[in-house]
C-alpha cells in the first residue's frame, strides 16, 4: 500500500500515527521506516517530520535503518536469562557472524533483544518475525536457521 492509502485506512488523525507507522514498517521489505516514506507521511498528515520522528524514535520497536528479512528477537526477561538467554545470543552471534543490533550482509537476518515475550514456560525463547520458538538449544537454533536458509535459497 502507498503511504497515502495507509493514512486513508486509519484516518488522518494524530492519534492514529503509531498504527500507521507500524503498518509502514511492516510492509517495508527491510522492516524499517525509511526517510522518504516519513516525508510523505508528514506531508499527508500535516504533522512536522521532526514530530513524527520524535515520536517514532521513542519506541524501540521502530527502526530507522534497514533490517533483515528475518528479525530475530531473543527474550531478555529474567526467566529466559536464568535459563540461558546470554548463551543463545552467543550461539546466534557466532552462527550469523553479527552482534546484537546488526544485520547479516545478505540482508537475511537481524539480531535484537526484546523484553518478555510472555512464554516463560518454554524459556529460553525467541521470536523470528511473527513466529515464536521455545526451549531453545544450540541444535534447535541451527535447525531453525538452516530451514530458513534452505527456504530462501529455493526462491
Amino acid at each position: 500500500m502507498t503511504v497515502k492509502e495507509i493514512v486513508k485506512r486509519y484516518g488522518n488523525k494524530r492519534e492514529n500515527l503509531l498504527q500507521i507507522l507500524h503498518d509502514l514498517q511492516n510492509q517495508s521489505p527491510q522492516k524499517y521506516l525509511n526517510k522518504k516514506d516519513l516525508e510523505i507521511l508528514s506531508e499527508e498528515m500535516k504533522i512536522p517530520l521532526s514530530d513524527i520522528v520524535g515520536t517514532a524514535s521513542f519506541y524501540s520497536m521502530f527502526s530507522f535503518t534497514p533490517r533483515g528479512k528475518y528479525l530475530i528477537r531473543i527474550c531478555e526477561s529474567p526467566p529466559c536469562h536464568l535459563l540461558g538467554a546470554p548463551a543463545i545470543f552467543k550461539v546466534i552471534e557466532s552462527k550469523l557472524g553479527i552482534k546484537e543490533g546488526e544485520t547479516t550482509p545478505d540482508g537475511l537476518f537481524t539480531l535484537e533483544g526484546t523484553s518478555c515475550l510472555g512464554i516463560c514456560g518454554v524459556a529460553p525463547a525467541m521470536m523470528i518475525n511473527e513466529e515464536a520458538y521455545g526451549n531453545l538449544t544450540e541444535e534447535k537454533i541451527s535447525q531453525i536457521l538452516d530451514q530458513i536458509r534452505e527456504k530462501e535459497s529455493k526462491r
Partner: protein
Amino acid sequence: MALVHITIDNQKLEIEEGTTILEAAQKAGIKIPTLCAMPELGFKPGSCRVCMVEVEGLPNLAASCVYPVREGIVIHTHSERTRQARKVVLELLLTDHPLDCMTCEKNGDCTLQDLAYELGVKESRFGRGEKKLPLDESNPFIVRDLSKCVLCGRCVEMCNEIQQTYALNVGYRGSKTKIIADGDSDLRYSECVSCGQCIAVCPVGALIDKNAQGKGRTWEFSRVKTTCNYCGCGCNFDFNVKEGKVVKVTSNPQSVVNGINLCVKGRFGYDYIHREDRLATPLIKKKGKFEEASWEEAYQLISDKFTQIKRESGSDSLAVLSSAKCTNEENYLLMKFSRAILGTNNVDHCARLCHSSTVAGLAQAFGSGAMTNSIKEIAEASAIYLTGSNTTENHPIIALEIKKAVTKKGAKLIVADPREIELVKYATLWLRQRPGTDVALFNGLMNVIITEGLEDKEFIAQRTEGYEEFKNTVLRYTPEVVEKITGVPAEDIKKAARIYATAPTTSLIYSMGITQHTTGTDNVLCTANIAMLTGNVGKENTGVNPLRGQSNVQGACDLGALPNFYSGYQKVTDTSVKDKFSKAWGVDLSDQEGLTVVEILNAAYEGKIRGLFIMAENPAMSDPDLNHAREALKRTEFLVVSDIFMSETAELADVVLPGVTVAEKDGTITNTERRVQRVRKTIEPLADSKPEWQIICELAQKMGYKMNYNHPGEIMEEIAQLTPIYGGIHYNRLDDGGLQWPCPDAHHPGTKYLHKDKFSRGKGKFFAVEYKEAAELPDEEYPFIFTTGRVLYHFHTGTITRRSKGLNEIYPEPLVEINPQDAEELKVKEGELVEVASRRGKIRAKVQVTEKSGKGVVFMSFHFREAAANLLTNAALDPVSKIPEYKVCAVKVQKIA
C-alpha cells in the same frame, strides 16, 4: 481572580490565586534558579527539577514553575533541603556534560555554570558518563553541540510554539534522548529557517552563534540597544561590541515590538558592518575612474555643480532621492536641503515604489495613510484577511503574531494571494486570485456582504460618506462574475465574505501584492471600503494594516521625503504650510509639487534633470525597466550618491560619499505601526565615513546655508516644532519603547490605533472602484505572468545581504519559481537554466519547480544583480500614486540548452 496571602522566604505577599510559585517569587524579588521554565513566554514544563522548593505541609518538594499558590501557603525557596535537591539534579546533569568551561563560548552566561558555582558542585558523585555526540556545524549561523545539551526543551518550545517552524523536537528516549532536527538530520538540511530563536533561549552552550565564536566572552561586551534596520517590523535588539567592533546581535527582552524574537536577518545579518569593501573615503570620478578625494574637495565640487546647474537651468533641474534606510532626522534634513537650498520639491524615495498607493489611497479614504493598528493587536483579532503579503518571508516577526492569532487564539485566517505562501498552511480559506485582479475580488466580497445584509449599517450611517454610489458599483460584481475574472470559486468568495463580515474583529493586512499595480491606489481604496463596510476600522484589534517594507519607509514618508508633502503630510501646495516652513527655514519655498522617483528618472533620461543627489538608495536595481532607469542615471549630468557600499547606482555616480551603517549613528526610525524608536550609535564611523545627517549639514554649509546641529536629537526638536503628528516626539521620551504617532504634544502617550471615533479626514469616504486589467497581460508571444517579491534571506537590492556571508551561503543565487505543470510543458527540471524575457529585457537563472507558483505565473525576487528581475518589469504607473506595476508583466520562458 481572587487575591491570596502567601509567605515566601518569610516575606508576606498578597498575590493572585493560581500564580505559580516561581512567578510569585519573581514578584517578591527572589530568584529561583531554572533551566527549563520561561514563564514570560508561557513555558512551564516542570521538567528540569532545578526550581524545586519546599512547601510547608507537603511531603515532597514542588516544582515551583508549575505549582500554583493558594491561601496561606508557606514556601521556602533556598532551604537546605532544596539546596540538596538541586545539587543532586545538577550532579546528574554533570555526569555527561563536558567540563570545558575554559573554552566554552557560553562561559559567563551559562545557567548550568552559575548553578554549579552557587551550589559549590565541583564534580558529580555519580561519576562521568561518556555522552559524546557529533558537533553539528552545518548551519552557517548556528552551532549545535548536543553533548552540552541539558534537554530542557526550550529550543523545541521556541521552534514549535513561537516560531512555529517545527524543525526541532525531542527524539529517542532514556539516556539516548537528544534534540533532533527534522528526521534527525543536520540542521542545515532541516526545515530550520535560521532565526536563531533557539540560541536566544538555550541556557547552556549547546546552541551557539557560529560567527561570534572566539570573538569575546559575555563580560567583555558592551551592549547597545538599538532598532533593526532591515524590514519595517521595527524589532529592537542589542549590538554586542568589543574593542570597537560589532561582534554579534542578541535579543533584548525589553523590546516592545518583538520581545526576544528576531529573524535570521536581524540576528545574523549584520556582519556587513565590518566588511572590507565598505566605502572608506569620498570618491570623485575622473575620466571614467573613481579617485579618492577629501571631503573638502567633494563638497566643493558638489556645491559648484549644483549651484551652476541651478543658475543655468533652474531649481527644478535638480532632484533628490532620500532613503528609507536612513533615519528620520536624515530624511528631514535631506528634504529640507532639497527644498530650502536646491529650491525644488523634486524629492522622493523608494516608498514611491512600494507603498505610495497606500499613502494616496488611505489618505483619500481615511485621511492618513498608515497602519491603523499596532503589531501586538494582530494576535488579538478574531479574523485576519491577509492579501498580497508573504509575511513569513518579508515581515517575519509580524508573521509570528499572525500564527499566534491562528494557533493560540483561534482566529480565522483568510489568505488571498496568487502564490501558495507559507501562511496558507494556517489559513481557513485560501483565495488564489489571478495576479492583478484584486479590485474584482474585493468587489465580489463586498457584493456578498451587501446582498446578504451583513454590512455594518450603523457604522456606515454614522461614520462614512459616499456609500450609495459605491454600493451601486459593487452590486454589479456578483460572485459568479468575479469568479470569471479572478479564477476564485464563487463559493469561496461567499465563505470569505461571511467570515470577514461576521467575525467580531477582522484585521486586514496587506503589502506590496496590493500596492504595486497600475491599479494600486484602487486596490488600497478597496481595502478601506471593505473595512468601513463591515465596521472594521477605528477600533482596537481591527483595521487596515499595510506592512511597510523598509526599516524607515514609514518615517521617510512622515518626514516629507515626498514631492507633495512637507513633514507630517503637510501639503506643499498649501500656502499656510509653505509660509510656516518658509519662516522656520528662512528661505522662499516652491509651492509646485515635485516629481516622483520614476518621473525623476524619466526627466533625467530626457535631460531635464541635470543634477541628482541620491542618499543610500539603489534605483539601478530597484526601479522597474532597469535598462531605461540605468540609462537615465548615466545620462544625468551630475550624479552624487552616498552609500556604504559601491552599489549598482554608486557605480554610475560622479561623486560617491561614504555614509555609515545603522551601528555608527544616532537617530530615530519609524516602524510600520508608526512607532518612533531610537537607533543608537554603537561604534565610531569606520575609516573616513560620516553619518548622512552630518554630510547633509556640511554640504549645506558649503552651499552657504546655515545648517548646524550638535546631535540628531536637536534635529528632532526642530521636527517636533514643525510637524504636528511628531509634536510630542523628544529623545528623552523614546528610551522606553518609543512612541506611536500621532503624538501631538509632550504629554501625549502616542496613538495605539487610528481613527477612533473620528477619521483623520472627518468621515470615512467610500470610493466606487471599477476593475481594470493590468497594464500588460500575457499573450501568445509572452505567455506567462511575471511577478516579483523578496525572500527571507535577502533584502531588497541585496546591497547588504549579498555581503552577509551566511545569508548568501543559504540563498546564493537567483531562482525562477515555476509551477510543476509549466515546467513539464517547458521541459525544464529543477536547477536547470532558463532565460526569462519580457519586452524590456531578459535574464538567465536557475529554475525552482514549486507549487508556490500558480500555473502560468512565474516568480522571481529582485535581490540579485546577476539576474535583476527589474530588467523585465513594467514601468507603467498607477495614475494617482505613480507606483510602477512590479507585480504583473508578461514574459516568456525558454530552456537554455
